[in-house]
């Protein structure tokens, strides 16, 4: 049927009017009124990751138009892979189901680990309440590494960590590779408190740690029970308020090593991100992203977060989160070196 111009104009008019009406806009933005948003955690309840998310909930409810109810579901397993698989493959992309895991789910995908059934480039990242940090390499005083020169000359230093592939293990290996250490031994299988006890009773000589852990045990430094040697700032160039230590990157000898350090930084920068399934309508993503941005900018958020989590937030905004994922170095050589660093075998040659 041929439709003439006046008739098309006649039919199009109501649509145009409808689109221009505030009520229509209201209906879109009010999609969440009376709805329930499910946050799928890739972790067990109760840990610091859980608290990071919980610290945001009342703000998100305030800033999402329609003030939806927000509920938490926990799907631990595979360092966040199980939850990410669910969000990618099974969750309905309606803006009512979003995921939040530790950054391990990003690393698992980039490094090609088993059990990854999601595509990082298709998931929609919505930001993270924390991103920047400093990692510090320390030794117990009894190990005799009272200076960087001595640290590099000691053979067979025992470096403790949680498990092969754990962020703390990877960073310890990265320190050992770039510093470099002489024939270091990596002892894994510790929880964080076990590792602290092992350091203090001489079972291990060294470990890498996030700066907040060192700050919580600041008496180790004050009482000269440990020596601090090196640091990696995430993001690059971030100064530490308390410690002035050489950045590991200053010891990198080649572009290849700098790329590996950059990969580590970007992986870490993703923090514990929120993400939505591919295909979620853009207007709902926009609403969620705006609510998360407003939450991070709310002056009451930082003190609330600190009270609940015990640390200052270092937000990664939604667009920064997407960019950090996009800019992750993915060239084969860097990935291969990183995989060798994150694996159980000997350190890669420099």
């Amino acid at each position, binding site marked *: 049927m041929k439709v003439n111009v006046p008739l098309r104009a006649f039919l199009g008019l109501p649509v145009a009017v409808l689109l221009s009406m505030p009520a229509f806009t209201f209906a879109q933005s009010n999609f969440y009124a009376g709805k329930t948003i499910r946050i799928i955690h890739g972790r067990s309840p109760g840990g610091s990751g859980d608290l990071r998310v919980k610290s945001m909930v009342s703000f998100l409810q305030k800033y999402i138009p329609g003030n939806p109810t927000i509920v938490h579901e926990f799907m631990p397993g595979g360092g966040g892979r*199980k939850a990410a698989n669910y969000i990618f493959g099974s969750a309905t992309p309606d803006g009512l189901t979003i995921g939040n895991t530790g950054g391990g789910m990003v690393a698992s995908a980039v490094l090609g680990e088993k059990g990854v059934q999601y595509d990082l480039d298709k998931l929609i990242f919505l930001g993270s309440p924390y991103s920047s940090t400093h990692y510090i390499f320390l030794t117990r005083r009894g190990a005799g590494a009272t200076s960087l020169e001595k640290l590099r000359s000691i053979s067979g230093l025992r470096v403790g960590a949680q498990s092969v592939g754990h962020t703390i293990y990877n960073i310890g290996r990265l320190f050992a590779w770039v510093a470099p250490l002489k024939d270091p031994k990596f002892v*894994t299988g510790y929880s964080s408190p076990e590792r602290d006890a092992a350091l203090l009773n001489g079972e291990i000589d060294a470990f890498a740690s996030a700066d907040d852990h060192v700050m919580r045990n600041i008496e180790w430094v004050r009482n000269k029970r440990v020596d601090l040697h090196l640091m990696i700032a995430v993001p690059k160039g971030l100064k530490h308020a308390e410690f002035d230590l050489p950045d590991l990157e200053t010891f990198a000898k080649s572009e290849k090593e700098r790329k590996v350090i950059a990969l580590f930084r970007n992986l870490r920068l993703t923090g514990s991100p929120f993400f939505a399934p591919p295909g979620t309508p853009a207007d709902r993503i926009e609403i969620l992203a705006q609510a998360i941005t407003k939450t991070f900018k709310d002056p009451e958020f930082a003190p609330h977060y600190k*009270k609940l989590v015990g640390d200052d937030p270092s937000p990664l905004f939604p667009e920064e989160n997407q960019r950090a994922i996009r800019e992750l170095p993915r060239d084969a050589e860097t990935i291969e070196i990183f995989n060798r660093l994150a694996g159980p075998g000997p350190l890669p040659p420099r």
Partner: protein
Amino acid sequence: MEISLLDAAVKGLLNVFQLKVLLAMLAGVCIGTFTAVAPQGLGTPLVYAILLPVVIKWEPVTGIALLIGASSVSAICAAYLPILFGIPGGSGSQATVLDGYPMGKRGEARRALGASFMAGGLGCLIGTLTLALAIPAARPLIYLMGSPELFVVMLWGLSMVAVLAGRRPLKGLIAAAFGLLLATIGQQAQSGIMRFVFDQPYLLDGFSISIIALAVFGIPSALDLALTKLGVEQEPAPLKGSLFDGVKDTLREWLLVLRCSFVGVWVGIVPGLGSQVVDWLAYGHAVQSAKSGKENFGKGDVRGVIAPESANDAKDGGDLVTTLLLGFPQGVATALFIVALLAWGFVPGPEMVKKNADIIYSVVWIQGLSGITGTLIGFILAQQLAKLAQVRYSIMVPVMFLFILMGAFAVNRDPLDLVVVVAFGILGYFMRRFGYPRPAMILGLVLGELMERYLYRSMASYGFTWLTRPAVIVLLVFAAVSFIMTLRGRAKGKGPEAQSPVTGAIARVGDES
């Protein structure tokens, strides 16, 4: 400002005796009681996670009262499920099912609950007292135990499993080996190697011990009731005795309570052991150290209830020693407790001992008072709850299945856990039917992962020289002596009924059907 420990103790007590603090403690006790009676999974960590955003806005001592009240009593009241339904309670109360359920079935639920609460209350007080005494000198105790010493302790535990086999040594060893094999499933922490994962994300972290224990003990109990109709409808088991029989039993066995409480405190103090082993170690110790009536274990011996319950409740005191005095969280719940303390401006560890000793003593007092209150509430509720043992099987069986499935689902909220719980439940039923001891399997599962971890760490840090460490040698001697005495005890036994330390439980549980 630093104050003397005596002044701190007095100030800590005065902090507690305020109406709002006492009310908060009472509210915590009520919450803890509810979580203990509810299906497992609604444990202390989840309760803490829910309460934390609220309590950090309160005054510190009031918030501490609510949190400690909830956690200290949840262990005391964890015996309801194992005794009344044959379903293992939360971790730390699983071994109670071995003797608690047979007692419940023969009409002694009140007695078992009485013993459980009394032992739990005393354990809690002993744990609290240890915490109070440990404040000046906790550090050396914790650093004494390195990976080599912990490996020997686990080996000691495994030697207990070997003798659990009783009249069926081969079946016991097969069950224990199967448990060890199950412990290898998932990503191996030390090497990162995937073992028996078959590219299934569900298996990346292995099987949950809570779910397996729930399955192999809970489902056979329910199936047994459903298939044989031996529920109290046909043979109503009269509720004989009273709660005070259990109290008297516990007081008569005061030395066992003391020993097992110290086992619990020690497990709580040492980083990494956790509540998964505490009840089993205490149970094994009870059977090994029993001078008479070893054959009664597993058939409803009250000592089999007293030992795990006293140890489980004393463990909380040990947990707090490490948490408060060194700043090491011993699990999710204590990690959250540390978060709360940090939010209030306290830094757990030596600094807190120096600067906020009064708050530590307030924790001690609240822990003790909560233990007493929880025990009393337990006694009050037990009178009514014990009557559940007389409910018709046609009502009880669906309720039991509901609790089991809810409990399994609550652990990870993963529907696949329901498949696993049913599969292992069927396996548990047949293990029971054909005399394969299920506790041996669970112990293999619990100890397997820990042994591997400690052995790996010992070898990686010390090579073979760890075998020459004095503490290792002493512990090896203890383990060997204990093992030999156990074997001698069995050899002296008469005929086929001769039982080994934990053998009774294993064999009896296997023989029941």
